């Protein structure tokens, strides 16, 4: 058990270091991620990081609508390429907007 943990620690350190440095979503498992595709997905960058948008207000419906699916569901971050911090803020803003009827909870009856 002790051997397994010590062996796994350096292995875990190496791949996470280069991946964690980028601002976009790190893609260590290219073929594994999209589900059987051969190529690497072209590196999607976080829209908020590149455009240096700091605040994501719930009032900005047009901005939020780009991250909401047709039925009103929040699009996962692996599809939009948003980084974690911004995805969390985005989620918060979307939920606030839903509460004030700017975005639907479930659309397209």
């Amino acid at each position, binding site marked *: 058990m002790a051997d397994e943990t010590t062996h796994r620690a350096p292995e875990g350190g190496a791949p996470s270091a280069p991946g964690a440095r980028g601002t976009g979503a790190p893609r260590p498992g290219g073929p594994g991620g999209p589900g059987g595709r051969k190529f690497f997905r072209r590196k999607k960058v976080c829209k908020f990081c590149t455009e240096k948008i*700091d*605040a994501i207000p*719930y009032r900005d419906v047009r901005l939020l609508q780009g991250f909401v699916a047709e039925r009103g569901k929040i699009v996962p971050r692996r599809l939009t390429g948003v980084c974690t911090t911004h995805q969390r803020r985005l989620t918060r803003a979307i939920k*606030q907007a839903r509460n*004030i*009827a*700017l975005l639907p909870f479930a659309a397209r009856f």
Partner: protein
Amino acid sequence: MDRFYEVMFIVRPDAEDADVDKLIAGFEHTVTNGGGTVRSTEKWGRRRLAYTVRKFNDGNYILMTIDADGALVHELERRLRVSEPVIKFITVRMDEEQKRLDKIKAIRATRKKLSAQPAAPAEGAAAEPAAEAPAPAVVPASTEAAHA
């Protein structure tokens, strides 16, 4: 130490403009009487709601930014809940967010000034305390050389 809030509420669409104005004035009085200040009131007008609220499909959106403390906000929310024309409201606390944004702007301002090197004394005064403060991974090479 007053906190800064944003209150957005929806007034039913069949209320008249005069009534809406009276309502807003009433809320503003509540805030000022309770010791807060109203920063701004914005009317978004009639908008389509994303879902049906109390059998209405449209609503009159109003956004108010206020400086108040917690008890006053509690009172304001109670009034919003009780008032009949208001069908929905949300209060968001914005002061922490504003502090964070100001900090980012300050860091960006010093970064730009250091790289552009203008001869303005105000920037020098602003750059000094900001450069001292630990800026995570934003410090350009020139300041590192100066510190080293």
